Structures are given as C-alpha cells and as structure tokens.
C-alpha cells in the first residue's frame, strides 16, 4: 500500500535535508562553545569570571543537545521535557545542598 506519493516523498527529503543542515549548524556551535571554554581556561582569566562563564556555556550546549540532537523541539515533547526539567531541578538542589551543608 502506497501511502505517500512521489511528490510528498521529495518534499519530505527536502525537509529532512534542511533539518540536517540545522543539526550540523548546532554541532558547529557546540564545537565552538567547547573551544571557547578550553581557551578561557588556557588563557588564565580570573576564577570569579571563568567559573560562571564555563557553566553558562555548558548550559547552552546542553540545550542544543536536548532541542536539536535529541529532537525535543519537535511536537509531542511537552510531558517528557517536564520529566527532564524536574530531574534538573532536583539536580541543582542536590548540588547546592552538598556544597553548602558539608563544609560550612
């Protein structure tokens, strides 16, 4: 049974190629952010500046992974991203708790 006509298939391939192009651009940006973080440490900027900067770049990279590489920007990801963000919320709480309770 043929569900899609030849024209529909060509349209799909075209969309798919465009999708792949945006994936490749996000890869380029992630590689760029990685290089920037290594340079920031290599150059030896002060720690008060480098640490928040590294965390910011890491968060941006992870959002690219989620929304582009893991396709979370496609429809039907509302509930699953709810799981992920609750996990991240717990994660942040846990790290703050460990860092503040243990040595202070």
């Amino acid at each position, binding site marked *: 049974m043929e569900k899609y006509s030849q024209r529909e298939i060509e349209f799909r391939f075209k969309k798919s190629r465009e999708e*792949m192009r945006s994936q490749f651009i996000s890869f380029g940006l992630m*590689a760029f952010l990685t290089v920037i973080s*290594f340079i920031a440490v290599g150059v030896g900027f002060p720690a008060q500046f480098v640490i928040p900067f590294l965390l910011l*770049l890491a968060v941006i990279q992870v959002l690219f*992974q989620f929304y582009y*590489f893991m396709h979370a920007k496609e429809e039907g990801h509302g509930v699953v991203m709810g*799981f992920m963000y609750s996990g991240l919320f*717990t994660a942040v709480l846990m790290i703050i708790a*460990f860092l503040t309770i243990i040595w202070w």
Partner: protein
Amino acid sequence: MSHIDLTGKFTIHNWPERPEIATQEGRNKLVGLWLFLGGETVLFATLFATYLALKNRVPDSSHPLTQDLYSLPLVFVMTAVLLTSSLTSVYAIHHMRNFNFKGTQLWFAITVLLGLTFLCLEIYEFYHYVTDYGHTFRSSAFGSAYYFLVGTHGAHVAFGLGWITALLIRNAKRGLNLYNAPKYYMASLYWHFIDVVWVFIFSVVYLMGMV
C-alpha cells in the same frame, strides 16, 4: 490506524515521517526513556555534588591535586571524539527517518567506533593517574569522588556501546521496520545523554579543576 504490521515490508512510500513514534509501543518507549534520563540526571547530580564537596580533599601534601593531574589536551581530544559521536548518531537517525537502512547502520557503526576510542582514552587516563601519581579510588576522598563520577560516566559509555552494537548485529538482516525503528531511536537518545553528562564533566571536573 487500527492495525499496523510492525515487521512487514516497508518502502519509502509507506514509511512514516516519524517512525519511532508511529506505534503505541514507540510512543511509550519515548516517554519511558525520557523519564529514565530524568532519573539519570539526579543520579549524576549526586555524584557531581559528592565530587564538588570532596574535590582536592586529600590526607597530606604527598597526594596529587586537580592541577597536578589533569591534562587539558587529552580532555579536549576526548571531548571532540564524544561530541562528534553525538553528531554521527544524529546522522544515523536522519537516515532512519529517510528509510535508508545502510546509512543508519553505517553511521551507528561509526558512532560505536568513536565511543570505543573515547573509552580507550579514558582507560589510558585512569591507568596514567594510578601508575604515575598513585591517585586511586582508595587513596583519598578526592580520589573516590573523582573515580566514582567519571567512572560511572565511563560505565554508561560502555553500556551504550554494547546496546548499539547489539542493535546493529541483531537487525543486520532484518532491515528497518516499525518494530526496530523505536529501538534505534531510543539508543540514540541515550547516547546523546551520555554526551550531555560529559559536557558537565569536562566543564565542572576538568576545566574548573585547572582554574
């Protein structure tokens, strides 16, 4: 659609645009896997929290600290390899959605090779720390926290390699269908998550360890 022949013969003309969620099983797997990844986030958070609390806590000055141990060029290569393997698994899923079975298998195989390279580099790194610095799991609180965090990530890489390799071998003669398409897709999501964790490991453990 009341009945879908999961393992029937497919062509590009009846292959769904999003094969991984064309079936109820696929949709359930997507929800289940993301729920699992949310849980994994919490697991890794506990390990990161332990590491940050115990970083550089050593009994005396004979033990190496982060700045003595870490080598940024090695970490940079490991990061580049893992990030590239994330891109190759995106290519594999791109081909899967376009009903290109050979492309799917080829790009997943490249992903496995890159993952294996990463794992070898990590084993070399641990070996180097243990033999040249005496930095072991039991040598200090810092050592325990470091190996537990980075080692758990390495174990996830090893598990992911086994998972993807099993899929490649098991489906080698089957071709793509709606039974195995969700399996490939979920393996790729897991693989991306491994890279997500690594982004924080190279930033928080290695780069911040050198600041």
